[in-house]
């Protein structure tokens, strides 16, 4: 018979197992960089993340639309032909918090990442690729016709 008690018990044990599962793969490569994510200046965010300022490079490919019809959803793809890519980050200069996302690329994963970002207004989007030999960037101006923040 299924009593309320046995159902509750099953739910709790299930929850405990799910909790264990959460603990297991937490071999994080790095902690969430609160300083970089919360600052309102792109330079300060970069300072908090990298040892040196990124240099513009043709080996960083940033794919973003010229005009974003909807600033709330701007598809961005970053890829790089550089060797030993450690991380890829996307910055939106005109946003309240310029750092949008950072992707850590372990060995064996292609140096490519796609995501969708929010843009408050027309601004430059910068992709920064961190490799063993330094940081490289590419940037592109994206025009926003409707703002993504507020709405």
């Amino acid at each position, binding site marked *: 018979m299924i009593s309320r008690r046995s159902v509750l018990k099953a739910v709790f044990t299930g929850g405990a197992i799910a909790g264990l599962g959460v603990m297991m793969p937490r071999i994080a490569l790095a902690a969430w960089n609160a300083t970089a994510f919360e600052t309102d200046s792109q330079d300060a965010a970069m300072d908090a993340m990298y040892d040196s300022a990124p240099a513009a490079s043709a080996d960083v490919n940033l794919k973003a639309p010229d005009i974003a019809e909807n600033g709330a959803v701007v598809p961005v793809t970053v890829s790089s032909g550089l060797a030993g890519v450690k991380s890829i980050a996307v910055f939106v200069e005109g946003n309240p918090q310029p*750092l949008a996302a950072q992707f850590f690329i372990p060995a064996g994963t292609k140096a490519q990442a796609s995501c969708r970002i929010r843009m408050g207004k027309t601004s430059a989007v910068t992709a920064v690729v961190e490799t063993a030999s330094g940081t490289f960037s590419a940037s592109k101006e994206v025009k926003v016709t409707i703002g993504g923040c507020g709405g």
Partner: protein
Amino acid sequence: MAKGIIRAKAKAKNGNTSVKIMAKHDMETGNRKDKKGNKIPAKFIQTMVVAYNGKTVMEAHLGTAVSKNPYLAFTFEGGAKGDQLEITWTENTGTSSTETAKVR
């Protein structure tokens, strides 16, 4: 397990596996205000870790500038049909969960 918010599609082809992940999440920035003018507290996914066979293949750190219902796509070497991916996400509020997806 808690209600899943993640929809993932992983496809193995020519020794590589392409993964597309979409999480159903509002990604509240903390900058918006409700009708009464009170700030809506920030609530967004901070980290998303994708593991394959116990090895992390992608770790994404997201900020508030990531769109609602965040989408993430990447490719890693290896992976075979029927294998399982583990996707762990953590919110800024501390809530976290692990969901699995099969490679097809």
